[in-house]
């Protein structure tokens, strides 16, 4: 009975956060299939330890850690995180369901953001993490997280409404 309830819990939880989580993982993965592998590993690892879903920062930190490991493995060489991140920049983009041209432009503008801004944006907009949670995931201060978010929005605005 309790197991069934917990079973439903993870399904409910995953149905809510799955798309945002996949988008978050997609930043580092070359393909959607790779991103799903990352999400699967992170979610299962997180849920097995039965962390409360309120502790979302840990889940996103797990995704990020696995994604970076995945990226390093994928490149078959040990690299520092920043280098791996930089390499990912050119080959990966977030995935959205595009309804019209304005959304296409917006998605394209998001893909041009620097990684450190884009990951904050993805966590804030599509995963509803607070700046405190984002700061925990990235190991930065809340102020830095908020700044990166503002820089991201400013960059998007500039990209979408050229002078």
């Amino acid at each position, binding site marked *: 009975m309790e197991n069934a309830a917990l079973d439903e819990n993870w399904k409910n939880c995953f149905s809510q956060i799955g798309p945002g989580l996949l988008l978050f993982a997609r930043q580092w993965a070359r393909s959607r299939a790779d991103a799903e592998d990352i999400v699967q590993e992170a979610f299962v690892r997180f849920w097995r330890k039965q962390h409360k879903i309120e502790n979302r920062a840990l889940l996103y930190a797990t995704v990020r850690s696995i994604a970076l490991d995945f990226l390093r493995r994928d490149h078959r060489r040990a690299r520092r995180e920043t280098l791996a991140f930089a390499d990912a920049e050119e080959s990966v983009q*977030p995935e959205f369901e595009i309804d019209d041209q304005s959304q296409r432009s917006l998605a394209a503008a998001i893909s041009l953001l620097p990684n450190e801004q884009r990951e904050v944006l993805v966590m804030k907009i599509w995963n509803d993490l607070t700046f405190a949670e984002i700061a925990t995931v990235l190991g930065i201060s809340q102020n830095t997280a908020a700044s990166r978010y503002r820089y991201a929005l400013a960059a998007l605005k500039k990209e979408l409404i050229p002078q």
Partner: protein
Amino acid sequence: MNDFSELEKQLRKLRPILPSQNLALRIERALAETRSPGAAAVLSRPRRLNWSWLSLGLGLAAATAILIVARVDLDQPKKETKNIASIPPVAIVPVATEFVPADFTRVVYRTSDEGLRFPSGSAQPVRRFRSQTRETLVWRNPKSGASLRISYPSEEISLIPISGQ
């Protein structure tokens, strides 16, 4: 106050692509491997302890078995030297009375189809299969709990008659 509110609204309208249904199934399967998440959390610690106690127990049992076998060898060196010359190999009977067969496993790790064969004197062809196995026999001493394990490779050839059509 927030000059990005309109942009944020537009961003929220962008919907991330949904994960495939296969992903949920994969997660379900992976979680099922450790039963439910609750059970996993509850069982994870005791399971580790159980394994460590189990391995400790097995280690002690193995050590006991070795000691008993060693003692049997050490206690009866003179008898054996006498008997070896006069009694055929059946002399290990005393050990067999103490250790009774407890387990037998046979693992087939390779099979190969060697094709049709036409044995002389046979009207129909046969197909020859070769299988390589490892057989493990275990004897246990009910009194002391000691056990003896012997493992050896074996090879078996099967001939299956083929009926022509």
